[in-house]
């Protein structure tokens, strides 16, 4: 389908639905077919930008360990340090405190050898390719997969970033809520009132009102945090803080979300069970656990997919780090497959390496996300296939 045709048809569908469901009357019911519970389910996509070394998070044990140790003499995680969760895999000890409970209570699943069909090993190209959500099929797609997913759903789609990512292109209603910055109220109540009045009867009136309401909501959602901080509670920073804020907003109005985290491009001195990368993984794990905790009972109807654009070379490089590879490890929270290893998971050995250097890509992230969304019944299968063309084939 040509770009313009795709866009035209999706806009027409949207406006047809809008008139049917009483948009004009001011009521804003959830759109989409009645078989899903879009006003109950929540989905969060977390993008680890920079090529996270999956092998450092979910590390080989048992049959694959000797080969692993040979390939990474200076940066492997010893078997007596990693925490076994299956015969084949162990957890990095730095993340165990946070992720082991989630594994044990079946909230957390791992997808090893996960990635994209893009072979460029270029951050920019692979990220850009992944964000479009397209597969190997012919024709171009318009916008990004999150945008196609959230378009018309009225699910308060939000990117918890400064600016919406390319993944959210195509849904003009998506909000940017930069949770890493505390958005203090910039205007006095009187100024807000006057600015809203400036747009009385103007086409942008609603957007202007929404914007002020959004700020107010965010301030409200985070007020408890500010109070706690004022009362002497420990100052949680970084990703953990952002994840807690995201959860608060998702519990409230924003049911489809996106976050990203950087700092994974470990070309040098990545360390082993201690050091730079393990430290980063610990922060990530703490944030994921904090998110689950903050969601509370609503975690039952929430799913999270954590992806990265590619993994890294299985063999360490000359700088005690790793270079760009293919397969990495992705994570799922809240899926039906919690407490298991999802997808293909062969023992790591020389013969399966991609280009004789990288852990192979055996589990396409799009198929995983599609299955996850389908199991959750967040949206219809049709919508999933629109967002991620070529998935859910069987």
């Amino acid at each position: 389908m040509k770009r313009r045709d795709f866009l035209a048809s999706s806009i027409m569908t949207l406006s047809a639905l809008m008139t049917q469901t009483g948009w004009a009357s001011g009521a804003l019911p959830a759109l989409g077919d009645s078989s899903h519970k879009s006003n109950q389910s929540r989905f969060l996509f977390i993008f680890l930008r920079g090529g996270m070394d999956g092998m450092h998070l979910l590390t080989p044990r048992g049959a694959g360990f000797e080969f692993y140790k040979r390939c990474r003499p200076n940066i492997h995680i010893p078997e007596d340090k990693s925490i076994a969760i299956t015969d084949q895999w162990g957890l990095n000890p730095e993340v165990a405190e946070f992720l082991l409970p989630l594994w044990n209570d079946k909230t957390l699943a791992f997808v090893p050898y996960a990635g994209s069909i893009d072979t460029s090993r270029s951050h920019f190209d692979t990220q850009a390719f992944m964000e479009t959500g397209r597969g190997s099929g012919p024709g171009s797609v318009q916008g990004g997969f999150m945008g196609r997913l959230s378009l018309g759903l009225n699910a308060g789609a939000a990117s918890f970033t400064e600016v919406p990512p390319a993944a959210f292109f195509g849904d003009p209603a998506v909000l940017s809520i930069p949770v890493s910055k505390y958005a203090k109220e910039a205007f006095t109540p009187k100024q807000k009132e006057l600015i809203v009045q400036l747009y009385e009867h103007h086409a942008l009136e609603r957007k202007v009102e929404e914007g002020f309401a959004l700020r107010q909501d965010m301030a409200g959602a985070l007020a408890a945090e500010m109070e706690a901080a004022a009362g002497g509670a420990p100052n949680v920073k970084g990703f953990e803080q952002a994840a807690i804020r995201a959860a608060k907003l998702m519990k409230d109005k924003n049911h489809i979300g996106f976050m990203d985290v950087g700092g994974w491009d470990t070309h040098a001195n990545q360390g082993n069970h201690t050091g730079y990368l393990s430290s980063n993984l610990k922060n990530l794990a703490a944030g994921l656990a904090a998110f689950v905790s903050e969601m509370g009972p609503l975690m039952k109807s929430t799913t999270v997919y954590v992806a990265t654009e590619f993994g890294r070379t299985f063999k360490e490089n000359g700088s005690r780090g790793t270079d760009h590879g293919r397969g990495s490890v992705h994570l799922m929270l809240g899926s039906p497959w919690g407490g298991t290893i999802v997808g293909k998971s062969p023992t790591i050995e020389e013969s399966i390496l991609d280009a004789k250097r990288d852990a192979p890509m055996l589990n396409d992230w799009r198929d995983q996300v599609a299955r996850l969304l389908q199991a959750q019944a967040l949206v219809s299968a049709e919508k999933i296939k629109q967002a991620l063309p070529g998935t859910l084939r069987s």
Partner: protein
Amino acid sequence: MPRIISLLKPTAYSIRKKPVKPLAFILSLAIVMSSSSVIASEAGDQQALILTAAATGPALIGVKPNQEGKASKHNPLSLSQQELLWRKANRLTFGANEILFKSWSEKGLEPWLDEQLSPPSDPVSGLNPSIKEWLDRDELLRKKGYEWAFENQAERVKINKLSTEEEKKPLRDELNKKIEEYSKQSQRLNIQLALYSPYQIRERATWMWLNHFSVYRYKNNIREFEADYTAKARSLALGDFKELVLNMTTDPAMLLYLDNQTNSVRRPNENLARELLELHTLGVNGGYSQDDVQELARVLTGFGVRWSAENAKVSKERLGDYRRVGAFEFNPDQHDWGNKKILGQVLKSRGESELSEALDIILKTPQSAEFVCEKIATHFLGFKPPQSVVDKMMKAYRTGPGGNHIGSAIKTLALSKEITQTPLQLSRPELFILGSLRFAFDQKMITNPNLVMTWMNILGGSPFLRQTPDGYPADPQFFSSAAQMQTRFEIAKQIGQGGQNLFAKESNVVGFTQLSNRFYFTSIDPWISPHTQKILEQATSAGEWNLLLLSSPELQEK
């Protein structure tokens, strides 16, 4: 046939000395004069009077312009003269301000337009000496991009030869800082020219083409070529479109961004060929096929980038076809020789000049002329320009020198009725930000544009920061989200409160935003809606008044 990497010869700069004429476009409209728009503010300052006196029609003392707010915007006959000027200024320049209106009243619109369309080649021409002096402090720009690229590459090779990471890391960081500073200096220059250059139409056109031929600075080492890419776009912005395409397509920044440096006869890469057709010359429905993409990719084989002054090793028989200009290289050994077929026409195998010939075939099509003229109209007028003005522009485009003349199309647009009659839309982020700054500070130089860059990075619109090749969209739905509107108001507040961070401490320039000034009363107050007037009256401080004015629909829409 224009050669690759040729630059326009500077035309002799001349001001046509004509007496002040009635501005032609006003004659065709019946205007109700408002006495309130005639303010003789200072002794001897007759500028406002010249503008208003130039129009024909009776002066009705004591009558304000059409008071019906929205209705007046949509009924062109009732638009006040001041509103017309305001609208035209915002569409042709980065924003109306006093110095612009002064030059219009001194020269007359059409002579001003002709000057704008044949500017001197030096981009800093016409800038205030104090502004020029401040810009000169950015020394890195004196070097050419490819000189940087060669130096930096040599540095990288040296660093890689070191044995330990401890030795390498600080040098790598240093190099990266240098490259980042070079990029920042280029960005600063671009912003300063948009704010202060008298050659506003060229500056608008430069930003238009940087968006049309959009590249992302953080891919590969494109930051090293950013300044040159910008300078190229600027120097070719108003002339022959073919020369522009040829030069932008073969610039190292574009070749790297769309991976053409890896496009070779043995391993073809279609990325550049596809975008050249889809985004740059014909548009997605322009009537080309996948075969055309493949054939154009064949044409583009061999166009690449080389990071040192040393040439590639080329086979003896092809040595005569090898060519270097700066970091650009045409390597005949990588080229796919043999005939090609583009849009049904045979292209004989000739090497580098095949690209020029392919462009001739493509640009001759009516679809291409329409595509290009619509893009130009969209940039200046806004999303979905009326077909009527695009049609007029196409004729001028074709009859201008070379048959693909950008300046002729722009002139037609500027003199058309559509320039003021098409409905207002929410301004694009960069036009809102830069327009507000031009209004607020006029020629008072913003010596610390880093804050401006931050605003633009957040709201969108910064050249070289768009990750995808399609450039920033013109459709307001993409920059009018609730969150983005909030950000606009916050920026308006910061500008309105004096924007102290805009003025570097060492520059001795103090900025104080006084928007309720003479310019406001002569050029905006006459037509601003009573609704907005009432709200402005409720401001309890100058800063608050400024915030409300800059946030109002009247100032946000262009």
